[in-house]
């Protein structure tokens, strides 16, 4: 091979590394990286790609043969890193760094960085620092509209806020003990049958998804909406916009593809309510809501099958029927309860629930899973 050809092939390889490193959406870490294969690399930063869904730092590293090779270090999103106090200038081209992390399953020179240390200062950088919330000594009362119903969204005076930081990011039937990580990856796939009362085909499919480390998740692969349940377990929260004049509640998604769901509060039926979509199953189905003693009860049918409705990949069919209950138990806490009924995939209805925390004084993070995709 001549030098010219080598150069072209080298450029193609570099471009491919860049594309494959940054072209996938925010994903379960285990889908791409093998947490049983840790590595440490030392090198010099050649590029900081400060974009969503994942920030990448490219590092020139001397390999065992003494040749310089380029590694892609994958980090969390710009949203997570900025929240933790970092910026695109925290690490710069030419900085020497030591990176500890886990390597890509596909054998490419990619590493998920669990630790990035600047050699010149010895300081760990670009790590995600969990937020610290100040819990009031006494729970603050639930804000209410003049008619006494709870306010789920914006507060009087226009003070912004949203709901985030769910107490659970995985869906399992109440009372089930089946340990899994924050992305819904079971610690032991043998626990799959405990998670929910699945039909045999659904259980086998769930196990298949688990054994493939959730890499087929359409929310990550194709930026598909998360659906009714999962939207309340996404990384960047949700915001309620209560349009009382039009008798509907908009549920805005902070992460994913930044879409929205409509809950109709005007007593309409679930069929034929949306012109043009009468027979078209939807990612969020058709949601109708009502108030029940201070709890918003939302009944939803008409889902399509083009998405995973949970982190972890519990299957569903177009027979999925959700009954969700939203209770703002105090100013800072939203209790979410859901009953899942899907005769196509489950043997009986089952329930789960968690809480979300009010993030006051902020708007939803600006994050689009479409960012930096080919």
């Amino acid at each position, binding site marked *: 091979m001549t030098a*010219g050809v080598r150069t072209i092939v080298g450029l193609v390889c570099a471009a491919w590394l860049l594309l494959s490193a940054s072209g996938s959406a925010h994903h379960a870490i285990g889908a791409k990286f093998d947490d049983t294969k840790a590595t440490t690399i030392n090198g010099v930063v050649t590029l900081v790609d400060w974009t969503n869904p994942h920030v990448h730092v490219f590092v020139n590293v001397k390999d065992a043969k003494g040749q310089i090779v380029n590694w892609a270090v994958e980090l969390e999103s710009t949203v997570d890193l900025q929240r933790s106090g970092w910026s695109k200038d925290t690490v710069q081209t030419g900085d020497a760094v030591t990176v500890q992390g886990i390597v890509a399953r596909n054998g490419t020179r990619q590493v998920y960085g669990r630790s990035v240390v600047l050699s010149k200062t010895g300081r760990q950088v670009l790590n995600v620092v969990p937020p610290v919330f100040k819990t009031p000594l006494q729970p603050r009362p639930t804000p209410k509209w003049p008619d006494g119903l709870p306010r789920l969204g914006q507060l009087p005076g226009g003070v912004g806020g949203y709901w985030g930081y769910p107490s659970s990011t995985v869906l399992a039937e109440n009372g089930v003990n089946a340990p899994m990580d924050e992305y819904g990856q079971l610690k032991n796939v043998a626990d799959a049958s405990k998670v929910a009362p699945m039909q045999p085909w659904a259980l086998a499919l769930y196990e298949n998804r688990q054994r493939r480390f959730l890499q087929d998740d359409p929310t990550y*692969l194709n930026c598909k909406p998360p659906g009714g349940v999962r939207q309340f377990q996404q990384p960047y929260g949700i915001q309620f916009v209560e349009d009382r004049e039009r008798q509907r509640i908009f549920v805005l998604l902070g992460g994913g593809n930044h879409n929205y769901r409509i809950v109709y509060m005007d007593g309409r039926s679930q069929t034929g309510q949306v012109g043009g979509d009468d027979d078209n199953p939807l990612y969020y189905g058709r949601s109708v809501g009502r108030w029940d003693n201070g709890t918003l009860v939302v009944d939803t049918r008409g889902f399509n099958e083009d998405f995973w409705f949970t982190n972890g990949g519990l299957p*569903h069919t177009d027979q999925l029927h959700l009954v969700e209950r939203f209770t703002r138990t105090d100013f800072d806490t939203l209790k979410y309860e859901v009953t899942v009924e899907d005769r196509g995939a489950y043997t009986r209805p089952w329930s789960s629930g968690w809480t979300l925390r009010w993030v006051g004084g902020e708007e939803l993070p600006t994050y689009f899973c479409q960012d930096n995709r080919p």
Partner: protein
Amino acid sequence: MQRRAFIITVLAGMLATGAGVLAQEGHPLKGSWIGTWTGNTVHGNDVLLVLTWDGKAITGTINPGTDNMAIKNASLNPDGWAVHLEADAKDKSGATITYVIDGKIENLAFHNRTITGTWKSQRGTGAFKIGRQ
């Protein structure tokens, strides 16, 4: 020329490796499937299936719109993703032909998964392969 072919090959391989894929969702058999039942002299080599799942049974039609063979017996065994389909049809003389298809789902995780196996009837047997659309 060889250089160009080499570069194109490398590029194509890498793009294929990095290309996104559509995931599988819902019941694995549900959907439209197109493929071949090789050697079928009665109904031709090309075959189209539309399958659905109501929570209890798999139903569907082979060659809807032309032969309209209703699937009378269908099963999916998740242990190995074995598929069994049976359907009756008529030949030109009006005689009943019963098709029995046995196969296995491959590439389960993908939207465009396939079923590969065999078909047989009173008039013959052959390879069967369909892909989900």
